């Protein structure tokens, strides 16, 4: 430990007022919790919307009591219209991708734990950090406000393909004000993420404490750092795309609408725009976004596994390099989302090749996890179970990516439920499992209480079985030709698929209900959970070295920690047991650099 008597960048006095402490807080820990709260609210809304969609898909003319409360014209007699189904689908996807999968694993956990794991008092630009959360909240509110405009939210899907997204009201319900609010929300969201990335990058590069070299960072910190670099470049591209989309709406420009476009028998007053331009700009963000959602989860899961395996990964460095390779390659593969857009077949091959190459670092990551687990005496708890579940989902969802990476196969499977099953497993559920693993693992440090393990394990098994029950059949549906984004399955060849849709709906209701166990566990444990010790999992990284649990305002009290080890000194003999903490000057073994 050493003095922190000098002033620090990012240092700020402990708040005294309620507003500064809990609302407009500069403390990265409070901001992390605020992000988590936002993600929790968002995921419950997103899940509720998916329930409504699934009910409609299983029983098309089902009247869902109270549905009319969500829409002015979309549910006559509480029966969902096709347009309202698409609106719910768009909102479900947008909420989940942006406000859950990006917000929780990256912004929430990263905010709370990155500064602590590097040994800093806070992030270097706390005001920007505070702004990043509030800007993100405003983005969420703007998005949700589209439920309250006359024709409701946009129905264009989270990809908002032009020209329908750019022509206004004539494109359908929600394609007027709904799209403008969507694009405005996402543009604002981008600002929040850019501010967050600025803090994450500078925290990692410049705020590390004495002895904390880059290679001594835990894998979770590496995950957040790599993600922040991706976020910096990806969101900086999505924001201009949204600006151009808004201008096509409100200023009558023609960036994305071609000449002579006729929609609903009306000639559109635009000239010469490019629909593909939107797709290029969107997917240049969109594919890295997949990794923005999953790489933090990879880091979290690695961190959780190491702690519970009581041994290091087969190769810490290769794992980091593989995550970095995923980040770099993610920018080179985006065209595989556009195989059927009419692009030159040579271009398809150009994008197909790196798409297949990106499976190499993905496979390396998985092999390192599997190889490290081999022979390990894994502690089975809720966090480690969800970490294992993450790996399972990542593999199951990743395997289908091999098929979709090849243009000749993708042409057949494009826009079918096969794709929906693929990305829900590899991006959605896997990332959610990463969030759950992180929650069960770090909750004791965040709130000073343990979560209920029994409820956690019930939650895991219900989620694990439920997720497969929902999304594995999607692959079959896709292979059978079931097109996605259809609100009903009228053609004859789809009739025999409807019982499977009903099964999926029941599985979705069951799995969703199981998440309420988690929410219950979260809130009850917050107030009535067993008090947590400072280091309940016998971890080695710096978050387990704080003087109190939860950590004090400046994380480490009067002294910043000094780091002597890498964070995976497990399975050694030391005075504390089978591990040596990063802050301990004890030499862990002959190979220890301390």
């Amino acid at each position, binding site marked *: 430990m*050493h*003095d*922190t008597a*000098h*002033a*620090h*960048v*990012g240092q700020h006095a402990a708040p005294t007022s309620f507003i500064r402490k809990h609302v407009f807080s500069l403390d990265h820990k409070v901001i992390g919790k605020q992000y988590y709260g936002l993600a929790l609210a968002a995921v419950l809304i997103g899940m509720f919307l998916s329930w409504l969609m699934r009910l409609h898909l299983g029983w098309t003319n089902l009247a869902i009591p109270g549905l009319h409360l969500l829409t002015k014209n979309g549910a006559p007699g509480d029966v969902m219209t096709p347009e309202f189904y698409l609106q719910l689908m768009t909102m479900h996807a947008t909420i989940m991708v942006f406000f859950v999968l990006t917000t929780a694993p990256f912004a929430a956990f990263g905010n709370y734990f990155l500064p602590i794991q590097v040994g*800093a*008092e806070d992030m*270097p*630009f706390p005001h920007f950090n505070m702004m990043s959360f509030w800007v993100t909240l405003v983005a969420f509110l703007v998005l949700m406000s589209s439920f309250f405009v006359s024709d409701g939210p946009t129905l264009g899907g989270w990809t908002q393909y032009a020209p329908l997204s750019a022509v206004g009201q004539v494109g359908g319900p929600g394609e007027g004000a709904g799209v403008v609010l969507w694009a405005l929300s996402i543009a604002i969201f981008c600002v929040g993420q*850019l501010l967050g*990335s*600025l803090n994450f990058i*500078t*925290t990692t*590069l*410049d*705020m*590390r*404490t*004495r*002895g904390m070299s880059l290679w001594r960072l835990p894998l979770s910190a590496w995950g957040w750092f790599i993600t922040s670099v991706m976020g910096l*470049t990806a969101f*900086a*591209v999505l*924001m*201009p*795309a949204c*600006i*151009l989309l808004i*201008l096509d709406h409100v*200023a*009558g*420009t*023609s*960036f994305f609408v*071609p*000449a002579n476009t006729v929609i609903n028998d009306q000639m559109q007053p635009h*000239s*010469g*725009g*490019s629909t593909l*331009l939107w797709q*290029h*700009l969107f997917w240049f963000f969109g594919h890295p976004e997949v990794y923005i959602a999953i790489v933090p989860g990879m880091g979290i899961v690695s961190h959780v596994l190491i702690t519970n395996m009581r041994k290091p990964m087969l190769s810490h460095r290769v794992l980091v390099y593989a995550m970095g390779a995923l980040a770099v390659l993610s920018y080179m593969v985006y065209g595989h989302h556009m195989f059927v857009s009419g692009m030159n077949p040579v271009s398809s091959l150009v994008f197909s090749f790196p798409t297949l190459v990106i499976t190499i670092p993905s496979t390396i990551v998985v092999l390192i996890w599997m190889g490290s687990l081999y022979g390990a005496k894994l502690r089975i708890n809720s966090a480690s179970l969800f970490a294992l579940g993450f790996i399972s989902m990542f593999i199951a969802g990743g395997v289908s990516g091999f098929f979709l990476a090849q243009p000749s196969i993708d042409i057949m499977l494009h826009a079918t439920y096969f794709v929906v099953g693929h990305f829900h497993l590899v991006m959605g559920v896997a990332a959610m499992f990463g969030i759950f693993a992180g929650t069960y693992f770090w909750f004791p440090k965040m709130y000073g209480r343990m979560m209920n393990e029994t409820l956690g394990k019930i939650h895991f098994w219900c989620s694990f079985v439920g997720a497969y029950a929902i999304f594995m059949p999607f692959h079959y549906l896709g292979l059978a030709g079931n097109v996605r984004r259809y609100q009903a399955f009228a053609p004859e060849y789809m009739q025999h698929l409807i019982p499977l849709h009903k099964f999926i709906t029941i599985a979705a209701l069951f799995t969703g209900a199981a998440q309420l166990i988690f929410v219950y566990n979260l809130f009850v444990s917050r107030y009535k959970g067993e008090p947590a010790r400072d280091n309940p999992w016998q971890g080695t990284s710096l978050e387990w070295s704080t003087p109190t649990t939860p950590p004090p305002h400046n994380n480490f009290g009067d002294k*910043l920690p000094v780091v*002597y080890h890498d964070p995976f000194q497990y399975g*050694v*003999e*030391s*005075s504390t047991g089978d591990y*040596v903490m990063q802050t301990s*000057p*004890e*030499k*862990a*073994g002959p190979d220890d650099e*301390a």
Partner: protein
Amino acid sequence: MATTVHEPPKIESQRDPSQSHGGFNGGGQGLVPGKGNLPAVKHYSPPPASTGIWVVLASITMTFAAFTSALIVRQGSALDWRHLTLPNILYVNTLVLFASSFALEMARRRIRVIAGGLKADSGDPSRWLYTALSLGLLFVVGQYIAWAQLRAQGLYLATNPNSSFFYVLTAVHAVHVLGGLGGLLRVIRKMSNSTLRKSTLDATAYYWHFMDGLWVYLLVLLWVKL
């Protein structure tokens, strides 16, 4: 058995929080004196601001790269691309923006001289800062005049794709310039109450000079493409 106690590993001095100059993540040192009445500034900048400015510039670069690719794709997507003569005032504005950067650089040099205690009568740097600020404002006004001239010719945002890109690119650049003016105001305020860090001044200067480079790039792009 793990019992050996070792010294912590050697690390770069700038990251060593126990160093007396204020630590790896900033500190009371590195402060730039207000009107030369503070002790000499150390030639050491807290890294977060120095790193952070490059992160910001990388982000802005990506944004304008996206706009550029949009412009190139849009130009090739249809035959509605028409030649547009850029208003002459843009060239004057370019000189104004460069002059603003020059003024900021002069202020920086004077601050460095004062901070180093080399020359007591090198002049008040805040005068140069106000000059930079005024010229920056003048640039924004000049851009507005350029827009007004186009409008007078009947070239609006949606008139044709050329005018669309002209307005979008110049407006987004102007918004970034306004952000830089906010940064200059912050420097002036911190200068007056003697809390200005060298890293803050440097970061603001890098940003402001980057605005010059970005504007020249946009001007060439618009001139070539429009």
